[in-house]
C-alpha cells in the first residue's frame, strides 16, 4: 500500500507496532499518505483495516468522522456503539468474494481489504496490480494472477458498497520515490561513506542494519561480520578502524552498555569508529519493540574518565543518511569515536524521500596521515604517533607502512606511544597529552552547524526537541501556529560537543520554551542545562513506549500554556487498556472491558476506576475491576457471580 502511494507520487509514512515476540500479540500498522513530505505517522485515523476483533474494539473509536472501517465480516463484527458518528462500516464477506480463486493463503485476506481500501481513498487499482506483479514475479504467473484477482475482488466489492472518502483529492504526480526507513539509510550512508567493515550482534531495533548490509555485502563491497557478543563487535570495528578502514557497528542500549569500555579505548588509541545505538524502551531489556529517547545519559556517560567523542542524533530517515556520512568524516578527521543515537521510531518506520535529496557522491575526509618517517614526525628515529599539536590532531600511520612502526596503547603515553604510566609516571606529559586529546572537542564543534530556530521568529512558544522527534514537533508547531498560538521549534541534532553559546542566545530570546522528549527524566533537558546552563521550566515527556504524536503534542502544549498541572492519574482509556490486560491473563479472550466509571473510592485509599468486564459474545456483565487512579494498581476483582475466577 505504502509503495502504491509512493508510485503514485505521494509521500508516505508507516508506523508499525509489534511486540517482542515472534507470533501474536497486538500488532498494527499505521500508514499516512500525503502530497507533502511526511516524517511521522500522525495520530488521526481515517480508515481502519481490522484484521481481528481486538483491533476493532481498540481502534474503531479512533476513526474520525467521515472515515471508514474495513473488516472481514465472515469472522469479525463491529458493534456500532464503538464508532463515532459519521463513520461508515465496510464489512467484506471475504470467503464469498474469493471462493472461485483457489486455495488462498491466510495473508491474502489482507489483499482483499487492500483492494477495498484503494477504492475508498480513490487510488488506481492498476498501479497496485503492477506492484503485486513486480513483487511476485519470482513466484510465477499463477500466483500473480491469484493476487491481482483477489485485489480486484475487494476493490470491486467496495465500489459497489461505499463511496470514496470525501475531501481526498489527490494530485498524482506518479513520481517514484524511495520508501525507506532510518536503518536502511544508516546502512546506505555507511556504504556511500566508504565503510568497509560492519560488525554487529543482533539486537532490536538495530538488527535490520545487519540484515540489510549482510544482504548487500557483496554488491557494495563491505565485509559484514556477526560476532559472539557486543564486546567483540566493537573491538573488531576499532581494530579495523585502527588498521585504516572505515568501520561501523550498530546495537541498541543493552549492547551499547557492553561497548562502553571500548569506546573509551578508541578515544585513547585515537582510532576512528562509528557506533550506532538505535534506542528502544528501557531500562534494561525494557520494551524491546517500543520507542524511547532514553540512552542520552548512557551515550554521554560511556566509559571512564574524560575523553573526546561526538554524539549525534539524526532527525529523519534522510538525515540518517547524511549523519552517517558526517559521522565517518568527523571520526577520521579527529580520530575519535562517534556515537549515532537513532531510535526505533526512525529505524523501523518507512517514509518516502525525494530521490534528488540523496546522492551516492558524498564528501569523504580521511584526516591527516603520515606516509613516511621525517625529522618532523619522529623522535630518535621513532614515529611520533601522538605528537602534541596545536589542534590536538596527530597524523596517523597506516599499519603496514614502512618506517612508521609504533605502539598505540590504552595506558597514557608520550608522543611516540611509550607508556608514561609504565616507566615513570610523568605528570607533565600526562597533563599535556590529556589536554591535547581534549582539544579536539573545540575543533569538532567548529565543524558542526549550530541549531537554528524553525518557524516564526516572534513565536509565543518554542518547542525544543532532539533527534527523531523533529517532524512531530514541526507539525505540532505548524498546527498550533495555524490555530493562533504562534509556535516555532528548536531541534538539536549535535549533542556533544554542544553549541553552548548558540543555545544560550536562541533560548534566551524565546518567550516560552517547552522541551519535548520521549523519556521519563528529561535526559535532554538535563543535558541542555548541563551544557549551557539554560534551564527550561516546561516540558512534555512521553515514556510509555509510544512515539510522541502531533495531535497529542498539540493538546499537551495547550495544557502547558494554560498552566494546567500535569495529571499522572490513570486515564479512562488507560483503565480500559489495563482491563484488557487483566482479562487476557485470567479470562482468556472470553471477556472485555465495558463501561468505565470514575469513583472516589474512599475505601481504596485513592480515587479509582471501576471497569465493568463484559462477555465478548453476549456482552453480559461478568464483574468489576477496581483500578487505582493514582497508583494504577489493580486493587480488586469483584466477580458478578462466583463463576468467573475467584477474587484476588
Amino acid at each position, binding site marked *: 500500500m505504502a*509503495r502504491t502511494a*509512493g508510485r503514485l507520487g505521494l509521500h508516505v509514512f508507516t508506523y508499525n507496532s509489534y511486540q517482542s515476540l515472534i507470533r501474536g500479540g497486538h500488532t498494527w500498522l499505521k500508514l499516512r499518505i500525503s502530497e507533502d513530505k511526511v516524517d511521522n505517522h500522525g495520530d488521526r485515523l481515517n480508515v481502519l483495516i481490522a484484521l481481528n476483533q481486538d483491533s476493532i474494539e481498540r481502534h474503531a473509536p479512533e476513526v474520525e468522522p467521515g472515515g471508514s472501517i474495513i473488516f472481514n465480516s465472515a469472522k469479525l463484527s463491529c458493534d456500532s456503539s464503538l464508532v463515532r458518528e459519521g463513520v461508515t462500516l465496510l464489512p467484506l464477506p471475504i470467503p464469498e468474494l474469493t471462493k472461485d480463486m483457489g486455495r488462498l493463503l491466510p495473508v491474502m485476506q489482507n489483499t482483499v481489504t487492500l483492494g477495498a481500501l484503494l477504492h475508498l481513498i480513490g487510488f488506481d487499482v492498476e498501479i497496485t496490480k503492477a506492484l503485486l506483479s513486480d513483487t511476485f514475479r519470482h513466484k510465477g504467473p499463477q500466483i500473480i494472477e491469484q493476487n491481482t484477482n483477489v485485489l480486484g475482488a475487494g476493490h470491486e466489492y467496495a465500489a459497489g458498497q461505499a463511496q470514496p472518502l470525501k475531501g481526498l483529492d489527490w494530485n498524482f504526480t506518479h513520481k517514484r520515490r*524511495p520508501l*525507506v526507513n532510518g536503518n536502511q539509510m544508516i546502512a*546506505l550512508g555507511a*556504504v*556511500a*561513506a*566508504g565503510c*568497509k*567493515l560492519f560488525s554487529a550482534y543482533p539486537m532490536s531495533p538495530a538488527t535490520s542494519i545487519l540484515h540489510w548490509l549482510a544482504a548487500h555485502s557483496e*554488491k*557494495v*563491497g*563491505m*565485509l559484514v561480520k556477526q*560476532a*559472539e*557478543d557486543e564486546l*567483540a563487535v566493537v*573491538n*573488531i*570495528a*576499532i*581494530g*579495523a*578502524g*585502527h*588498521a585504516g*578502514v572505515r*568501520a561501523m557497528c550498530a546495537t541498541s542500549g543493552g549492547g551499547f552498555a557492553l561497548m562502553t*569500555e*571500548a569506546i573509551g*579505548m578508541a578515544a585513547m*588509541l585515537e582510532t576512528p569508529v562509528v557506533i550506532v545505538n538505535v534506542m528502544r524502551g528501557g531500562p534494561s531489556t525494557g520494551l524491546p519493540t517500543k520507542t524511547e529517547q532514553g540512552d542520552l545519559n548512557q551515550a554521554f556517560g560511556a566509559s571512564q574518565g574524560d575523553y573526546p567523542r561526538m554524539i549525534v542524533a539524526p532527525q529523519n530517515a534522510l538525515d540518517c543518511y547524511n549523519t552517517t556520512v558526517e559521522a565517518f568524516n568527523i571520526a577520521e578527521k579527529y580520530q575519535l569515536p562517534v556515537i549515532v543515537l537513532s531510535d526505533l521510531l526512525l529505524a523501523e518506520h518507512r517514509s518516502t524521500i525525494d*530521490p534528488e535529496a540523496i*546522492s*551516492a*557522491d*558524498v564528501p*569523504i575526509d580521511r584526516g591527516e596521515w603520515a606516509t613516511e*618517517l621525517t625529522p618532523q614526525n619522529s623522535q*630518535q*628515529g*621513532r614515529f611520533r604517533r601522538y605528537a602534541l599539536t596545536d589542534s590536538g590532531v596527530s597524523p596517523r600511520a597506516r*599499519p*603496514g*607502512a*614502512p618506517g612508521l*612502526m*609504533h*605502539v*598505540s*596503547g*590504552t*595506558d597514557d603515553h608520550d608522543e611516540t606511544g*611509550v*607508556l608514561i604510566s*609504565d*616507566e615513570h609516571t610523568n605528570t607533565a606529559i600526562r597533563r599535556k597529552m590529556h589536554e591535547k586529546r581534549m582539544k579536539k572537542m573545540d575543533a569538532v564543534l567548529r565543524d558542526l552547524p549550530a541549531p537554528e530556530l524553525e518557524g516564526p521568529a516572534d513565536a509565543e512558544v518554542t518547542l525544543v526537541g532532539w533527534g527523531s522527534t523533529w517532524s512531530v514537533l514541526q507539525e505540532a508547531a505548524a498546527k498550533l501556529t495555524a490555530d493562533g498560538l504562534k509556535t516555532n521549534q528548536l531541534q538539536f541534532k549535535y549533542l556533544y560537543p554542544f553549541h553552548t553559546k548558540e543555545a544560550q542566545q536562541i533560548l534566551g530570546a524565546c518567550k516560552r520554551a517547552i522541551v519535548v522528549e520521549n523519556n521519563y527524566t528529561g535526559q535532554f533537558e538535563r543535558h541542555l542545562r548541563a551544557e549551557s546552563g539554560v534551564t527550561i521550566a516546561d516540558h512534555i515527556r512521553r515514556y510509555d513506549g509510544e512515539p510522541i504524536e502531533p495531535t497529542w503534542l498539540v493538546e499537551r502544549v495547550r495544557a502547558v500554556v494554560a498552566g494546567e498541572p500535569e495529571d499522572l492519574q490513570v486515564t479512562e482509556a488507560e483503565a480500559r487498556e489495563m482491563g484488557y490486560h487483566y482479562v487476557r491473563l485470567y479470562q482468556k479472550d472470553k471477556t472485555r472491558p465495558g463501561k468505565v466509571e470514575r469513583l472516589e473510592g474512599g475505601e481504596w485509599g485513592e480515587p479509582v476506576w471501576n471497569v465493568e468486564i463484559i462477555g465478548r459474545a453476549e456482552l453480559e456483565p461478568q464483574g468489576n475491576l477496581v483500578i487505582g487512579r493514582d497508583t494504577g494498581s489493580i486493587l480488586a476483582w469483584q466477580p458478578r457471580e462466583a463463576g468467573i475466577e475467584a477474587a484476588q
Partner: protein
Amino acid sequence: MMKQELTVKSLDGPVHPDWCPGCGDFGVLKSLKEALVQLEIRSHEVMIVSGIGCSSNLPGFIRTYGVHSLHGRSLPVATGIALANHALHVIAVGGDGDGFGIGSGHFLHTMRRNLNLTYIVMDNEIYGLTTGQASPTSQEGHKTKSTPRGNVEKPLQPLALALTMGATYVARGFSAEPKDLTKLIADAIAHRGFSLIDVFSPCVTFNKLNTYAWFKERVYKLEEEGHDTGDMDAALQKSFEFGDKIPIGLLYREERPIYDDSEPILQQGPLVDQPLGIDKETFDAILAETM
C-alpha cells in the same frame, strides 16, 4: 631508514622491558624476535596486539606495529585488524587471565573462525600485574591472594579447549626452552589459520608454586616421543596431561580453509586497499529496490 636490517637488535623497542628480573616473559619476547628474524618478516608488516597484564606489555618492547588494548580484548581487536588488512602478520599476545579468563569467550569464537592469526599466551598460572590472584589456569589448591585457602576451581586446559574449538595449530612452549619456542612461534606465524601457543612463562614474583624448577621437572618434548601432530585423538589426550608429566611442543596441526577464503570481499585484496564509496549505478539500483 627504509632499509631494514633483520637482526634481533633491530627489533628492540624504545624501552627496556620493565618485567621483574627472571620473568618468563623475557624468553617469549626473545623467541618472538628471533622467529621474526628467521622468517625474514619486515617489522612494519607485523602487528602485535595485546590486552592488559604484565605479559601484555610486550608490544612496547618490540619494534613493530602494536596495539596495547583492553584487558581481555586482544583477540577481537586483532580480528578487526586481520580482516581489515590480511597482508599484515597479526600476532596476539597476552596472559592467561587476559586470554582464558576475561577473554575466554573471544578465545572460543575466534578459533571457530580460523582466521589467519597467531596467538601467544604467556601462561604463568597467576594474575601477575594485579599482584597475584588465582587465574583460570591456577592449579587446585594454589594459595593466592584471592584464594588464601587454596584455589578450588578446576584449572582450564587451554590446549584441550583449542582442539575442541577447531584451532588448526595447537602448541605449548616453555620460556626456558628458547630454541623450541622460537621454532614453535615461527611455524605458527607461517601457519595459514589460527595458531595457539600456550607458553609456560613463570612469574617469579607471585607464583611460588609453578616455578622454573617445577616445570623443568615435569615437561617433556612431544617431538621426542614420536607424537603424531595430525592425530586429533592423540592430541586431545595429550592436551589433558597436566601432572607429573606435561607435554611441550606441537600437539596438532591441520590445514583448513581460513576465514578469508570464504569471504568474497577479501578475494579482492586487503580491505584497506579497496576503493571507498559506491558507484551511481549500484546506488540507484539499491534505491530502486525500495520503490
